[in-house]
């Protein structure tokens, strides 16, 4: 069991409330996954700048000092926003490679866990409501977000094993279920040059999508292909720069409920997660079909 929630806003006026709505949704899914939690939120951004989400082993890490080192290395200003063990560095897109080298070279145990124009990615072990509070999700704004509460089955309870998993720039994946062919698939993907941090099955699914897209597939095509190559139970929700997608395995083993109004499209593992959304009583509520790729995007 795990819990997934997602919210894609159609009404821009709701954007300042995205974080508070998501925090409530995530909180209701605590008992589906009390081990760890994480979320990806798509806030403001522009093509000239990249947002790097950094994760440190402890909250004592001096992100400001690290930012100074990065500024010196790239010769451009870096904006820093710190949330407990995580920080988002915003810097010129052209300097990304140099910035990554400076961060890796600083040997302060900080990892770049997400990159993109708009995506910020936070995850941690602990009860989901406590994790959301720690990162102050309730005060974050954005156009859409996805979040996950984990009850670990396939690998250890660690921050690395928490969801979401980044699948590429501005892209991430959360998963409810368990894959049965992840060890074989991991070996195949490693032979193709991919690197995995954990024994986690979802990381393999994320790596699989990354590999498919590196071969030229769109995210929709990659998800479609995963129906034949991934064996097991899954409800996937993927976040992209402009929206989010949903895919359930062909026997729809894991639950999924969606709600749509003029203001938003929302996803929940259970209806309980959606019950507090504004206008839910008038929303169209339905279950996504098995083996069908769904997408909602801003154009």
């Amino acid at each position: 069991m795990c819990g997934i929630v997602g919210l894609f806003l159609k009404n821009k006026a709701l954007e300042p409330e995205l974080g508070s709505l998501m925090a409530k949704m995530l909180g209701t899914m605590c008992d589906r996954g009390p081990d760890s939690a994480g979320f990806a939120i798509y806030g403001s951004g522009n093509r000239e700048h990249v947002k790097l989400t950094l994760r440190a082993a402890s909250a004592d890490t001096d992100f400001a000092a690290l930012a100074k080192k990065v500024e010196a290395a790239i010769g451009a200003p870096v904006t820093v926003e710190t949330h407990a063990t995580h920080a988002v560095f915003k810097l010129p897109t052209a300097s990304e490679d140099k910035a990554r080298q400076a961060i890796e070279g600083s040997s302060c145990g900080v990892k770049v866990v997400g990159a993109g124009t708009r995506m910020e990615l936070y995850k941690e072990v602990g009860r989901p409501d406590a994790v959301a509070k720690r990162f102050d999700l309730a005060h974050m704004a954005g156009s859409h977000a996805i979040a996950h509460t984990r009850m670990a089955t396939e690998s250890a309870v660690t921050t690395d094993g928490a969801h979401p998993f980044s699948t590429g720039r501005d892209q991430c994946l959360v998963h409810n279920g368990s894959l049965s062919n992840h060890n074989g698939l991991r070996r195949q993907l490693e032979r193709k040059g991919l690197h995995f941090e954990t024994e986690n099955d979802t990381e393999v699914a994320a790596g699989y999508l990354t590999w498919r897209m590196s071969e030229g597939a769109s995210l929709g095509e990659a998800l479609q292909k995963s129906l034949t190559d991934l064996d097991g139970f899954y409800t996937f929700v993927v976040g992209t720069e402009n929206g989010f997608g949903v895919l359930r395995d062909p026997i729809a083993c894991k639950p999924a409920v969606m709600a749509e109004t003029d203001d938003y499209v929302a996803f929940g593992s259970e209806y309980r997660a959606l019950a507090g959304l504004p206008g839910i009583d008038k929303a169209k509520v339905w279950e996504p079909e098995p083996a069908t790729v769904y997408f909602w995007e801003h154009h």
Partner: protein
Amino acid sequence: MPVVDLEVTSLRDFNQMLHGLGDGTNETYFRVINPRGRHAIAAGIDAAVTVEIDGNAGYYCAGMNKQATVIINGSAGVGVAENMMSGSVRVKGDASASAGAAGCGGLLVIDGNASGRCGISARGIEIVVKGSVGHMSAFMAQAGTLVVLGDAGEALGDSIYEARLFVRGEVKSLGSDCIEKPISDGHKDKLGKLLEEAGMGGEVDLSEFRRFGSGRTLYHFHMDNLGAY
């Protein structure tokens, strides 16, 4: 007429109170407000009372029901009326997966659509779905009836025993050992009575239904059937 607000009264207290109702109780009608998708609302009742739920219910609503009438003015989560023994449950909206699972008796009516595995392992329950049902409905159903006014998804009646299935719309595919069977006047009479009981008498032409049931080839192990087990 007690109104139970689940934002005020704890669900556990409400269910406990329902379980304490005996035969001849004077309180025979309860209205539940603010269900907000909570699980196991009105599960385990054994009394001839009516519970009407205003809003969407979560998992296992009215599970194990005996005698009671439970009406959901909204949609229901996974396993509505699972293991029902008698009485009736009506869902005015849609039902999630495994509606009426393993039910032994009683009547489940779903005005909207039901998701996958509707009537899985049914053991005597009667289910009427006004809309369509999802994949693997009536999987391993042993006894009882499933009536679908709309369409049925993939693998209908997979590994079915002796339950009767009636579908008015299209059937995407039949599961292992589920076959179409002729529909007699006797079947139509029973179907008509069941639809009347479900409040849909005269709404549809009975000749539009097709009947499905067990081919009875999987009852005992047979080497030639290995692929189908």
